[in-house]
């Protein structure tokens, strides 16, 4: 499959090119028998929070497992801090991984589980329990830390899982669908905590198939679909790259037909749809369209109540890129 975006033209998901790369993948592929996991991925991550966005089955979990050292690449090379995460155990001390699945050792209490995981990540035994308590507190689990995981709700399991990922203070976090099943209050807490970790210097890769989850965390994304990274970078930069395709602008105003008539003559306007309260304009030159729109509004003294571009939302980018990959893009 050919990437729909010229990725060489897109700044890295973390454009801070002065920092040494945390992740370097070159020609990275993984098959499960005849089933493709990821294919020929070239990707560099230098820091910050990077959202790994894609539908279910796109290859997000496979890519995360490769980075966590859980599976071996079928082809290509992957380096985390310059080391092979599958072969070099030491680099995994720097990785915090929260898997997508909910399975855990249910017989243990949250504190026992997180303490054990901290120990196994290399934290000295006397320091492991305080580290676990701290991690659980950060995830809002202090009150439940002496309860067995067996009785936990999905949200509590997610938070415990995240605590196991951060207890040993890794500088590279891999969080596979970390917000799934979490209630809105806990979601906000977790999002805030992940941001704090990034501000503290950790590099965080977060996967999700839910767009607003990623939006809440970062604007730096990598879109993955059918095992390939289709695009990466700031969502607005990606938007610019796909601006050769119609860009939608939604306008709600008191006299939409006047506005439609003024814009209809413009050659950059591909389509105009008049709705109950306004119109939806598709243009190939957004900047020019915005200028003309402003001029028309002023000229006719129109009252504009809403002006928005659905395409500035991640979902539009995601829909566009995945549609292109399927070959049915506009």
């Amino acid at each position: 499959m050919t990437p729909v975006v010229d990725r060489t033209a897109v700044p890295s998901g973390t454009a801070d090119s002065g920092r040494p790369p945390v992740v370097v993948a070159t020609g990275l592929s993984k098959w499960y028998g005849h089933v493709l996991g990821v294919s020929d991925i070239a990707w560099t991550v230098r820091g910050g929070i990077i959202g790994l966005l894609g539908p279910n089955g796109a290859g997000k979990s496979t890519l995360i497992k490769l980075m966590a050292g859980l599976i071996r690449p079928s082809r290509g090379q992957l380096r985390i801090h310059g080391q092979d995460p599958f072969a070099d155990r030491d680099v995994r001390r720097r990785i915090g991984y929260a898997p997508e699945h909910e399975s855990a050792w249910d017989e243990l209490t949250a504190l026992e589980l997180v303490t054990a995981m901290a120990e196994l990540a290399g934290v000295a035994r006397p320091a492991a329990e305080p580290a676990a308590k701290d991690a659980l507190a950060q995830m809002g689990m202090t009150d439940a830390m002496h309860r067995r995981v067996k009785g936990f709700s999905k949200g509590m399991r997610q938070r415990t899982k995240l605590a196991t990922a951060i207890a040993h203070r890794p500088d590279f976090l891999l969080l596979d669908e970390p917000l799934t099943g979490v209630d809105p209050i806990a979601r906000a807490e977790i999002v805030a905590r992940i941001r704090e970790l990034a501000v503290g210097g950790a590099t965080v890769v977060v996967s999700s198939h839910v767009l607003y989850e990623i939006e809440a965390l970062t604007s730096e994304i990598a879109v993955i679909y059918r095992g390939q990274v289709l695009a990466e970078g700031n969502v607005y930069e990606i938007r610019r790259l796909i601006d050769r395709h119609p860009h939608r602008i939604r306008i709600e105003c008191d006299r939409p037909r006047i506005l439609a008539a003024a814009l209809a003559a413009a050659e950059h306007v591909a389509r105009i749809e008049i709705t109950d309260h306004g119109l939806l304009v598709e243009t190939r030159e957004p900047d020019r369209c915005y200028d003309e729109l402003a001029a028309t509004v002023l000229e006719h003294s129109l009252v504009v109540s809403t002006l928005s571009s659905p395409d500035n939302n991640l979902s539009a980018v995601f829909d566009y890129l995945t549609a292109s990959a399927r070959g049915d893009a506009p």
Partner: protein
Amino acid sequence: MSMTAAILTIARITLVRLRRGRALWVGGLIAALPVLFAVAIRLSGGGQSPRETLFGLMQLVLAVMPGLFVASAVGEDIEDRTIAYLWARPVPRGAVLLGKWLALAPIVTLVVLASWSLTEVVGPRGAPSPASLLGLGLGALAACAVGGGLGTIVPRHGMAVSIVYLLFFDLILGAMPVSLANLSVSHHARLIGYEETMALSGVGWLVGLGALWLVIGLRRMRKLEA
């Protein structure tokens, strides 16, 4: 993290999980069967049970326990993907198998020996012989290695496959000509523990078979993906 530290940590966690799980209770009930059988025969006025029958019952216990404890513990972690928590950390992959074996094999051995000792107390001899304790003890350790190895090969059905292997295949192997019988854990456990012969070579074979199955499991662990 060193191999030793990882093995000890995993062993400790395994024991905590075992203490809170059901396997210990189920295993205890199974191990009580030979004792109850011996007691029942004695109370019913049938005199003392033939030692061969009692030892045969112990061998059945020996065939079931490694599957119930070791194979299921190893297989469940792989099948439930909880092993991802371990392998995403700087833990040597082999430490998972060795840690579980180190925690569970002595428990299985103690339960088997306790069961046999009580059975012998109410049985024909009145007390277990050192040879029988050696045979069953080493047999339990080796059988647990078989269970661990099979747990890595067929994680989804580790317990069932381990029980079937030790209950049928291993016993059939033991009835084969000597060259093949030497590959049977139950054969050597019986030679040492019941017939009380060939102690040294039998000990060597049991240690060797246990080590072989652990190596098979360790090699399998290195190839597995979570």
